[in-house]
């Protein structure tokens, strides 16, 4: 069963709806005890880094999440700020991240962008897969995803980056290390391409 982590941030029901269309059972996880029965986890998120980390801390889910992801190797998919939370730290805040993938989160630098480029990076953009990865199966450069962010994940290990997106230079839009996955875009709001990605995650 896929558990959608509900720590009070992000579109939990949107994920549940996509999986309902796919006939894949999900459960919304609000309490630590509910984590025991899940075989995969989705960590959604819309919000600033510290706010999201604090919310996760307050939910009481963090210690057990750490355990199922790090000790039991349950596959987890972080979405948007949920991906950024996988890092060790973020320029957006002072709190430490989960540290499940070696990297840090940094801000787009508006002065390094061309004048037509704006921050936040907002809207539909292509992804460029860098390697074969089950999460991205069937998704190529023609696939489009919805992005909404001012910060991005900078991986310390290049092999963890599985896809990049060009926004005045390429940044990591999808990462994977072992059982931990993260995407910067919103698959739950990215029509057919997002549905495909969430289906891929369910099949891992």
């Amino acid at each position, binding site marked *: 069963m896929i558990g959608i982590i509900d720590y009070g941030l992000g579109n939990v029901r949107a994920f549940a709806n996509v999986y309902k269309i796919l006939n894949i059972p999900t459960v919304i996880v609000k309490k630590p005890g509910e984590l025991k029965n899940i075989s995969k986890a989705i960590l959604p998120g819309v*919000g600033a880094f510290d706010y999201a980390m604090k919310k996760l801390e307050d939910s009481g889910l963090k210690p057990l999440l750490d355990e199922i992801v790090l000790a039991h190797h349950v596959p987890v998919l972080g979405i948007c700020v949920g991906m950024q939370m996988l890092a060790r730290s973020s320029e957006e805040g002072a709190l430490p991240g989960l540290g499940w993938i070696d990297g840090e989160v940094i801000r787009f630098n508006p002065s390094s962008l061309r004048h037509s480029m704006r921050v936040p990076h907002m809207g*539909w953009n292509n992804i460029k897969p860098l390697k074969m990865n089950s999460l991205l199966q069937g998704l190529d450069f023609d696939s489009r995803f919805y992005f909404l962010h*001012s910060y991005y994940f900078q991986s310390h290990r290049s092999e963890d980056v599985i896809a990049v997106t060009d926004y005045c230079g390429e940044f990591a839009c999808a990462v994977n290390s072992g059982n931990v996955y993260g995407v910067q875009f919103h698959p739950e709001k990215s029509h057919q391409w997002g549905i495909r990605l969430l289906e891929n995650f369910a099949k891992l």
Partner: protein
Amino acid sequence: MLYPRIIPCLLVKNKGLVKTVNFKNPKYVGDPINAVRIFNEKEVDELIILDIDATFEKRGPDYNMVENLAAECRMPLCYGGGVTTSDQVQRIIQLGVEKIAISSAAIENPNLVTEAAECMGNQSVVVVLDVKKSFTGDKYEVWTHNGSKNTGKCPAEVALQMERLGAGEIVINSIDNDGLMKGYDLALVEKIRESLRVPLTVLGGAGSLHDIGRLIHKYGAIGAAAGSLFVFKGVYRAVLINYPNRKKKMGS
């Protein structure tokens, strides 16, 4: 590449969808959830849904409606209407909305924009400026409360102020062009866009894909929003939810 965003903007009044002309004469055009379902099928880029009664009636957001809309949307949703506190912003984000539009409250209490950006991140904080030409026609002014109060403020200055305070997107809504379907006010766009560094979305006046095409051709990855264009069909304005397919969109 980052694509331009073509965004239907839906107005809610008494729980139904309406379309106005110059912010007046709301005409009932259907049920919000039903419209969202059709827009899902058409794979729209994004949706803006504005509750136009809320601020005017001095009430907060209808959370029940927002939650149902957010759950139904398979595209990013920007909700606006009656948002006056940071707590309301947090609650709406928790319901599954990606972006919150603040309008009158941003002008009356600019701190709200900063507070909202601090917890939600600036990418989720949208300021909508309703703009009208002054009586003498020589300048533009920002109006609030669904076009009933003139602040006398200059839209370009307010837009920049909101960007500094933490807004991640500015939506410029032309009261003069609303519902007329005769094209965007490009002179207004020109005045505001140059100095802004956050994304800009333009609303008010689009009557055809050609109008949207002109805007995109000139400004690239801009937000092109429209109401009437996506809910009416033909010269008699028959209600028909519509949206260009991918091929037509690329052509516009």
